């Protein structure tokens, strides 16, 4: 190519570049304002809305509803950057003052900049279970602003980007906060309530039952189906309100999400009601939810079986009921300090027949309560009938200090017997012995 042509092309290229660069560089504007203007507007919007609610804001904060329950916080923001706050994290529901800020970073966020109640959820050194060591209650106190909806402020938590809504609080919310602590007692359940608890769902036509257990330190409950072939479970975090509980995730029945449960003080139940007859109820039962026929191996004619309560290992077992502990304590209180009940061993079909051995520490000799057995095939219980007391060599009078404890085994309705699926300390199978009339339940090892 000649130099002339090269220059021609060069000029052409320069001209076309020139013309090309003249084309409009304005990108299509999706927004009326620049990003900075929009961030500033959002910041002002959030700062303003925080001050609008007369009684402040309420947030029921479920930090992680796969392991923990919800913690209710009330906030009253002031224009000077201070905030009054109360929480039902523990029984201290008083209001405390600290500082907050609305900050602009990658987005607009609300930060509680000096310590107050909400920081109790984010204390690495205060964790409810070993799994959360160093992580506290997984709480955040910086919330990213995502707008408003129906008068609620929508935030997402800074660390794990979970939605958290601030709703307008009322004067009652502040007054009722101490009642949340009372409600916790109802969720834990009083000793006077029956031993067994279940979640019952009703989809309008059919009912399903799930055994229900609640862990107070994590405010978390598990409910597993009791029906064979119906593998379903509900795990839920629980938050307390003045008249019941809120659960998260919601209990889903027939595609309806039930999350607000109301407390019934008469029977201790909590009920959430949907539409079309759909309900979910957490309630008590005097009978075990699954009644086994394990008692049959203890009846006459079967091989020897020894079920032994060993105080050192089984007093603290979760299946040892409070009534059982109370009665053991009462009997022990009558004895010298070194002679407490160490074992209660029930021998069925031994070469000496059926008897309960009460064994003690400190060299105090054992006493034996001999009995006969019969069954209540309808209610699936074994009934123990008194025969005699002895000390291994001679008959004795019934020891008065053991009467209350001993009577539990001899109630006329009998005992539910269950071979449990868990073990405690040792590999021996655990059996529970539960009264059919009271809240008495003893945990024992299978010893033979």
């Amino acid at each position, binding site marked *: 190519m000649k130099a002339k042509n090269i220059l021609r092309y060069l*000029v052409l290229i320069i001209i076309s570049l020139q013309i090309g660069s003249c084309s409009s560089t304005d990108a299509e504007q999706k927004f009326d304002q620049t990003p900075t203007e929009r961030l500033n507007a959002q910041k002002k919007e959030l700062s303003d809305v925080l001050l609008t609610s007369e009684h402040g804001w309420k947030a029921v904060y479920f930090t992680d509803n796969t392991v923990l329950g919800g913690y209710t916080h009330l906030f009253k923001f002031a224009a000077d950057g201070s905030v009054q706050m109360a929480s039902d994290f523990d029984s201290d529901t008083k209001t405390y003052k600290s500082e907050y800020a609305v900050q602009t970073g990658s987005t607009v966020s609300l930060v509680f900049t000096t310590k107050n109640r909400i920081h109790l959820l984010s204390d690495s050194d205060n964790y409810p279970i070993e799994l959360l060591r160093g992580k506290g209650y997984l709480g955040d106190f910086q919330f990213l602003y995502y707008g408003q909806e129906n008068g609620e402020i929508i935030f997402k938590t800074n660390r794990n980007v979970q939605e958290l809504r601030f709703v307008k609080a009322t004067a009652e919310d502040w007054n009722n906060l101490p009642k949340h602590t009372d409600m916790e007692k109802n969720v834990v359940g009083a000793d006077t309530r029956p031993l067994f608890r279940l979640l019952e769902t009703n989809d309008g036509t059919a009912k399903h039952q799930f055994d229900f257990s609640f862990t107070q330190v994590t405010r978390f409950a598990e409910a597993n189906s009791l029906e064979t072939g119906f593998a379903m479970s509900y795990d839920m975090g629980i938050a307390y309100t003045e008249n019941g509980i809120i659960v998260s995730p919601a209990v889903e029945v027939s595609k309806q999400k039930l999350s607000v449960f109301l407390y019934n003080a008469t029977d201790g139940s909590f009920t959430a009601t949907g539409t079309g007859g759909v309900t979910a109820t957490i309630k008590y039962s005097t009978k075990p939810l699954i009644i086994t026929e394990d008692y049959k191996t203890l009846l006459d004619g079967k091989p020897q079986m020894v079920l032994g309560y060993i105080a050192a290992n089984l007093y603290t077992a979760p299946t040892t009921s409070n009534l059982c502990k109370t009665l053991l304590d009462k009997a022990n209180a009558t004895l010298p300090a070194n002679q407490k009940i160490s074992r209660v061993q029930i021998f069925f079909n031994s070469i000496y027949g059926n008897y309960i051995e009460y064994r003690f520490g400190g060299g105090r000799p054992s006493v034996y309560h001999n009995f006969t057995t019969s069954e209540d095939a309808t209610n699936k219980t074994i009934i123990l009938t008194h025969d005699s007391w002895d000390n291994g060599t001679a008959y004795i009078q019934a020891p008065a200090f053991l009467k209350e404890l001993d009577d539990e085994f001899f109630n006329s309705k009998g005992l539910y017997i269950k071979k449990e699926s868990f073990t405690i300390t040792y590999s021996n199978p655990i059996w529970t012995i539960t009264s059919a009339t009271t809240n008495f339940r003893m945990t024992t090892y299978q010893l033979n």
Partner: protein
Amino acid sequence: MKILKYNNIAGLFLLLITLVSCGSDEQPGESQLDYTQPEKTTLDNWITTNYLNPYNINVQYKWNQNTVDNNRFLFPPSLEKVQPALEIVQKIWLDSYKTIGGTDFVKKVAPREIVLVGGVNLNTVGTRTLGLAEGGQRVTLFETDYVNKQNRANIKEFLHTIQHEYIHILNQNKPFDEKSWAAITPAGYTASWHLYTDEESNEIGFITNYSRMNINEDFAEMASMMLINSKTEYAAILNGITSETAVANIKAKEALVVKYFKDAYNMDFYALRDEAEKNTNAVINN
């Protein structure tokens, strides 16, 4: 000739481009960012008077996610705990160095920012991180909420952090005799230092278990332990050690610390220790 003509045309266009690009654009206006300083509280003013003005050290007590590790579950200090904690740091650390090292000593060599965190920084292995120094610029102090003036052990632990971190900062300015130091107890260093107790570590020539991390931590621990403990307390630690070799090794390290302060900063380390002891007693007894 023709070539020249094309050259002229090309030249003209280039000139045109240059001229057009010189066309005045809109000048930047006022910033849209909010630069207004938040109103200063009494506490903020106290910090300005006692830390910012005399030492050029900023104190950050309000939560700022950019200065803390977001993977940790930490929280800011309670407002009412901030000033008492800072007063202790001022009295025992700043005042001691000021008296012995001269008025401007800390001002020249100091962290530029102290970050206060209210709670405990618990590690998953069960240890607690008491403080952090980042690049000699920022020192983070944890457990501000639990500072208790009446409790000597508590004060010592809280001060241990700042004394320890400040030694790192001094080392970053002027290195210590690392070669001689490394020769004293070469075998005892381990990343699993937390598996050993202080007493076990004393017996092999280390002042604390954390000393065993590496020679830099060893130096900082050695110097800071001497500063937070009184002369008597320090002597008691040495007296409690059975192994004579261990005591000799610790004393050898002590000598290197003293020499470092003399050579690098012309400071009498024992005088600094006595001053710190005097000021610690003053804090606890008031």
